[in-house]
C-alpha cells in the first residue's frame, strides 16, 4: 500500500491518507484491504448520510448496485442504507464509487452475522451515528470517509478483525 499514510488513533479508529489524491474507493489499491474485511464478514451495506446533490442517475446506480434497499429517510435520500451485491464490492466497485461521490459521509458497513441485519436497520433508523451502530450490534466493521476528502477511516468492534487489518496494512 504505497503513497498511503496510516495513523492508529486512541479510540480504535484507523485512518489512511491517500497522499496527494482524493479518495477513490474504486481504485485497486484498496482491493486487498476490502477483500480481507469481506472474508471476515458475510454481508456488506452502503450507508450514506447527507446527500450533496440529487439526480436520476443516483437512483439508477443504486438500483444496479443494491440487493435490498433498507433505509431512505423521508424519501429524500439524505440518509440511505442498502445491501450491496457481492460482485459490486469484490469484483468492481465502480457503482459504489459513484454513489460514494454523491454523499458527504459515505461508508461501507460489513456485518459478520446475517441474522443481525434487522438490528442494523433498526439502530440506524433511531440514530444515524456510527458509534451507535458499533456499540449496539456485534461483528461490525466500517469503512468511511469523513471531512477530509483524501482519508479513508476504518473502525471495527471486533478486536480480532482489527488486529488482522492492522497486520494487513503493515501498521
Amino acid at each position: 500500500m504505497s503513497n498511503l499514510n496510516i495513523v492508529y488513533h486512541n479510540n480504535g479508529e484507523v485512518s489512511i491518507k491517500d497522499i496527494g489524491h482524493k479518495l477513490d474507493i474504486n481504485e485497486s489499491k484498496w482491493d486487498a484491504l476490502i477483500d480481507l474485511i469481506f472474508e471476515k464478514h458475510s454481508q456488506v451495506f452502503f450507508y450514506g448520510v447527507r446527500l450533496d446533490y440529487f439526480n436520476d442517475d443516483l437512483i439508477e446506480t443504486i438500483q444496479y448496485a443494491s440487493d435490498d434497499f433498507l433505509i431512505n429517510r423521508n424519501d429524500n435520500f439524505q440518509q440511505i442504507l442498502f445491501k450491496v451485491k457481492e460482485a459490486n464490492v469484490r469484483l468492481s466497485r465502480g457503482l459504489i464509487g459513484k454513489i460514494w461521490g454523491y454523499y458527504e459521509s459515505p461508508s461501507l458497513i460489513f456485518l459478520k452475522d446475517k441474522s443481525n441485519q434487522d438490528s442494523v436497520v433498526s439502530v440506524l433508523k433511531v440514530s444515524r451515528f456510527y458509534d451507535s451502530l458499533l456499540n449496539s450490534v456485534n461483528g461490525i466493521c466500517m469503512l468511511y470517509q469523513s471531512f477530509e476528502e483524501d482519508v479513508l477511516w476504518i473502525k471495527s468492534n471486533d478486536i480480532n478483525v482489527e488486529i488482522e487489518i492492522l497486520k494487513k496494512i503493515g501498521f
Partner: protein
Amino acid sequence: MDPLAEKFYSVNPYNYTDNNPVNNIDPDGMETYYGDEARAYFTRLQSMAINNEDDKKKKKRNSGKNDPGKSYIKGIIGGLDNTWQGITGQFTLGGMAKGLANTVTFGAISSADMLMNGYTLINNIPNYDVDDYAYGAGFVTEKAAEYFVLKKALGKVDNALNFNLNEGWGVFEGKGLKVGNYKVDALYRNPRSQGGTILSIKQQKTGGNMLRWDFGNAHSPATGKIYHSTFRFNVNGNTYGTTGQAPVGAPFIFWKYKQK
C-alpha cells in the same frame, strides 16, 4: 479597506463596524449601523422579504441573466474578510481583555440567532433579485464564520447547543441552502462519533467541496487540532487549497495556498 476611510481618520482604515462586529453591522461597506439601529435594519430586511412577493419589479429582475453563484462567491469573500477584519480588530483593542469572554459569548449567541434569521429570510424570498439573494446567502455565511471564529476564540464549544440543531442535521435541516449551483450547510453533527461541521460550502457535483470548517479529530495530529479546515476552489483559473486538511485560519489567507 474601507472605501470611506478618508472620512474617518481617527480609526484604522481596515476596521469593520468601528471594531464592534458583535453589535454593529455594515451590509455594504458604506455605512455602519449601531446597536438597536443594526437590529432594526435586519428586521427591515426581513419585512422586505415578506412583502417582496408583491414586488413585480423584483420578479422581472430575477430573470436569470445574472449568476447567483458568482454573486454569492463575491459575498462569501467579502463576508469572510469582514468577519476576519472585525474579529482581529476587536482583539487588538486595548483594555478589551477583561470583558472579552462575555463579549465573545454574547457575540457567538448573537451570530447564531442572526444565522437562523438569515436562513428564514432567504427561505421566504423566492422572487428575490439574484444579487440580493446572493447577498443574503453571503450574510448567512458571514454569520456562520463569525460564530465559528468567536467560539474558537472563547476556547470551547458546547456540543449540545451547536451540533444538535434539528436533531443534529444543522441549521438547514440536511438539505442545505442552495444558491445557484452552490450548497451551504452550517452547524451540523457528523455521523463519525463526536465532532461536527461549522460551515460547508460546495458545488453541487462530485468532488465539489469548496470550503469546510470542522470540529473533531482529523487524520494527522500535526495539523489535526480540534478545529481545522479543508478548502479547494478556483478563482480566475487558479486553484487554491487541496483535498487535505489545513490549519483553521487557512481559508482567510487562501492566496497563500495557491497550487502550481
